[in-house]
């Protein structure tokens, strides 16, 4: 299991979202045609009955990678989403675990690769958390996101 945390600067109004948002893989390059991970549409269909989640734009092109890993979506979480629901990180990680257990029923669950971008509202600071590992490590991803969110005091008083 491997978690990499990096700060990135993206001063972009596209990322002022009030719900969990699925980003295209090439989100940093707005000139290009957006390309989403091929797993994201099914994941979105599964997750939308459990959490408020949407795409940045409607997917038209998908990136299909035919290795055994599950290349999950790139997710944007903002501090305002956490303000509305402080349990959202835990629920989101649970949704991913349940989806993959269901999806890979009868075969060994593969390695999971996904990214979560955490953005403080009214700030250009974005923290990118890249996760690579098995399902058992999802609680570590949850802890990493919460640690970063707590540093920014996401609950605006």
């Amino acid at each position, binding site marked *: 299991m491997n978690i990499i945390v990096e700060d990135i600067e993206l001063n972009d109004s596209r990322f002022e979202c009030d719900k969990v948002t699925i980003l295209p893989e090439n989100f940093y390059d707005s000139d290009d045609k957006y390309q989403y991970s091929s797993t994201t549409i099914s994941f979105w269909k599964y997750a939308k009955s459990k959490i408020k989640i949407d795409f940045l734009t409607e997917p038209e092109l998908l990136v*299909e990678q*035919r290795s*055994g890993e599950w290349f999950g979506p790139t997710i944007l979480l903002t501090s305002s989403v956490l303000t509305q629901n402080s349990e959202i990180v835990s629920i989101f990680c649970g949704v991913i675990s349940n989806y993959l257990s269901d*999806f890979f029923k009868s075969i060994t669950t593969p390695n999971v690769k996904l990214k979560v971008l955490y953005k403080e509202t009214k700030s250009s600071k974005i923290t990118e958390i890249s996760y690579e590992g098995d399902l058992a490590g999802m609680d570590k991803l949850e802890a990493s996101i919460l640690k970063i969110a707590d540093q920014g005091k996401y609950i605006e008083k």
Partner: protein
Amino acid sequence: MKNKTISFDKIEEKFRNFIDSCGRLNFFTRSRRLQEEKINECNEFVAEIKGYKAQAVEKSMESAANEFFLMQCVVNALKSSLSMWVNLKNDQYQKAWSCLIDAQEYSIIALKMRDYEGLLNLQKQLTYIEESVFPGWALYNSPGFIETVGKCSICGKKFIECDHIENQIYYGSLCQRVERKVIELNHTAVVENPRDKRCIITQISDDDGNMIDYFTWEKTGENKENNEGVIGHMESVLFVIPSLDVF
């Protein structure tokens, strides 16, 4: 003409007897003639099961349709396994390998619906065959490409517009994205753990540039020059269009 009726229990009994008869032939030493005959019977039996499934779908009986789909996948798994033995006997090793992977994938889909001892045993048998009959590959190909979203195999709508989820079973069919257009093949990687085990290395070169068939280890007769900086050559399967009978 009077329609004949048959109960689900009778169909299930016929299915159990049929897969037992397939299992008895699912060994290398069994006669090729008998195996080929059984493969033909499998095709006929799958057509019969699909007929029952269509009736269940027409009557909106999803669980019955899924039971028939389970039978369809198990018979197809056994058919693929028998085809593997026939291909091995015909020295068609790459085809045999593809049949083995087909059989494994059918058993995985069947296990999504229900696991029972016979199916788990078949899955184990297929793993043993993979490990003992074939040479084994440390690396496989894994291409990456940009493609369109495509349509849903269940309802025919644009895949973004319906609620069906890929790899789930609805009314006896596996949901897949279909009519996808590849826009750009942007890379290929060599990986230990591929999505599709059919994407194998089929030939490698020795130190003198002689190409060697990876299945037989025989020289193919082709020689490729080892230019400076080139470690060796290989031929491999990059991508296979999925063709499992899952509808």
